[in-house]
């Protein structure tokens, strides 16, 4: 590095110019990384925050990709999963995007329906027919606190608690009971139907009950598992019916028949669980929780685009650094020839040249990353979804240095081909 340091000091203008380019590229990469992570969190944090390790979707068959927006699972599928050996627990989870109103404020929210007392939701024990739990952002957007009220798809509900910062598909999460969710979500099935409800049912255990309904899908339904349930099965949700059984079904015992469906099943599995066999038996397709993020349509397209931009920036960074050091190496090939003629080994010269590149890259990247972090800290907490973590700051910096060093290495290898003989009789 003896010559390299002195070159850096001597050719200040050239290196300052190149350093500025590296600073700007790193700043752009840093900002884009923070923005990508922030947007990703807005899309997925409700899913990544679930205490589950796998998510079971409806298997549409035909090799179609699963999707959180298209999936509908039934109570029977949930019960099958719950009985599967190796599964610690299985919880139905309903997801829909809707609008919530509180006073004169209104906000788009994602309603996450879970069974009362479910471990999926914060303060799940406080969820019932009239109570919801809000994420912090939802509470801020709607201007409500615990004890306040809001209207969700026409249902007047009380805020039982405000907890966490879960969001899904860029909307804050409102945790509801499955029944509230069922009345909020558009259900599979078509056309209006009427049911006589409430239909009578028997209590937990072995009881039976019957009910009738009219409209599409009308008929008697027998529930899975331990109890026989009755009610309308119009698949629309605007009839009412009562279900009974073992008291652990999707709903709370009253509510629409559509509450017997959810969007996905959240699973917590132990070692040795045969998910493929369980999927075949239940008619589901199970993904690891992190893999299931690709089933969020907006996340896949948005994240893909941003990652592509980031990848291009890394490639551009490597190319720019490589181009600079190619020109620089050609310019100083006379010096290299003299040093070789004087007895400098190629290894010493390569070390010197590559060290110079790494110093320039590290310096530029450090400044660029610092600026990105400072800007990120400024915009964090505002409407800009910027996530400032070591992963979004240090990782892109490390990648920029590594790829830049690779580009520089390809350039400075020209040092090996400089002929020391050219130093004899040369005039520089």
């Amino acid at each position, binding site marked *: 590095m*003896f*010559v390299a340091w*002195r*070159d850096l*000091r*001597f*050719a200040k203008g050239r290196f300052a110019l190149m350093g500025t380019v590296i600073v700007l590229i790193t700043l752009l990469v840093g900002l884009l990384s923070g923005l990508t992570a922030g947007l990703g969190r807005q899309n997925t944090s409700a899913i990544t925050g679930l205490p589950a390790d796998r998510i079971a979707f409806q298997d549409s068959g035909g090799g179609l990709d699963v999707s959180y927006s298209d999936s509908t699972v039934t109570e029977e599928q949930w019960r099958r999963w719950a009985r599967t050996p190796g599964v610690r627990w299985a919880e139905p989870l309903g997801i829909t995007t809707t609008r919530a109103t509180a006073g004169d404020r209104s906000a788009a929210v994602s309603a996450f329906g879970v069974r009362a007392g479910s471990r999926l939701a914060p303060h799940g024990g406080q969820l019932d027919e009239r109570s919801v739990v809000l994420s912090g952002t939802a509470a801020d957007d709607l201007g409500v606190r615990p004890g306040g009220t809001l209207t969700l798809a026409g249902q007047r509900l009380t805020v039982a608690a405000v907890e966490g910062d879960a969001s899904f598909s860029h909307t804050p999460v409102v945790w509801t009971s499955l029944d509230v969710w069922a009345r909020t979500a558009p259900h599979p099935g078509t056309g209006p139907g009427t049911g006589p409800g409430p239909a009578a049912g028997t209590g937990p255990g072995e009881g039976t009950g019957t009910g009738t309904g009219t409209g599409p899908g009308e008929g008697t339904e027998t529930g899975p598992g331990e109890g026989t349930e009755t009610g309308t099965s119009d698949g629309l949700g605007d009839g009412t019916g009562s279900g009974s059984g073992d008291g652990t079904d999707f709903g709370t015992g009253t509510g629409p028949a559509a509450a017997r469906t959810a969007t996905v099943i959240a699973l917590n599995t132990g070692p040795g669980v045969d998910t493929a066999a369980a999927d075949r038996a239940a008619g589901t397709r199970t993904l690891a929780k992190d893999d299931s993020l690709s089933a969020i349509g907006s996340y896949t397209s948005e994240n893909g685009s941003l990652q592509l931009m980031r990848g291009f920036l890394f490639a551009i960074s490597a190319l720019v650094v490589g181009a600079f050091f190619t020109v620089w190496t050609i310019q100083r090939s*006379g*010096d290299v020839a*003299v*040093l*070789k*003629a*004087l*007895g*400098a*080994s190629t290894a*010493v010269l390569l070390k010197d040249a590559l060290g110079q590149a790494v110093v320039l890259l590290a310096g530029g990247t450090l400044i660029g990353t610092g600026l990105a972090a400072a800007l990120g800290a400024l915009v964090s907490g505002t409407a800009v979804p910027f996530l400032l973590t070591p992963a979004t700051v240090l990782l892109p910096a490390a990648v920029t240095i590594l790829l830049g060093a690779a580009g520089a290495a390809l350039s400075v290898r020209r040092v090996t081909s400089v002929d*020391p*003989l050219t*130093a*004899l*009789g*040369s*005039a*520089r």
Partner: protein
Amino acid sequence: MSLNLTDVTLTYPDGDARLTALDRVTLDVPGGTLTAVVGPSGSGKSSLLAVAATLITADSGTVTVDGVDTTGMGRGELTALRRRKIGIVFQQPNLLPSLTAAEQLQVMAVIDGRSPGRARARALDLLDAVGLADLADRRPHQLSGGQRQRVNIARALMNDPTVLLVDEPTSALDHERGAAVVDLIARLTRRRATATVLVTHDTTHLTAVDQVAEVRDGVLRRPARR
């Protein structure tokens, strides 16, 4: 300490044929003596210097540096030999623009794996020996042509070589400064007992040399002692 070239032949490709640059050249340069190799342009002087500097491998013959036969040596061995045993004074100073006069010498220690800090005292001594003690911290563009050439000479001596090869050191200097440079090389040769070869086409500065060898069309005439 000596340089010996024995029956050295060197050819270059010239279309389909080969051009003979050196034709069975034999030259012995004992330590502490200055040998001038003279001849017109294209006679083979530079080729002789390049072979002696181990920058080109001869087609045949042997080159011995301080008793070490360079025949069959690999590139790495030749580089190490050049670094430790051979000093080269280039036709043009070929100084590195980012380094001061002292650093031009210190870099010789660096490429030999030694500390530049410890080498500074020796660099300053050598600059003093060539009359540049006060200009140690100047960069090349702050020195005159003659001063740059003196730095060039001092750099060649930095690793205490046994063989000193000097290529047309006066070509860019006026007569007075050219004579001063040749005198300096002669003094350093005797003081440091190096086997010095001075390649030049200018025969007006040869009063200080010990022997003169003339090369024409690649053939070296028997050196004449002076």
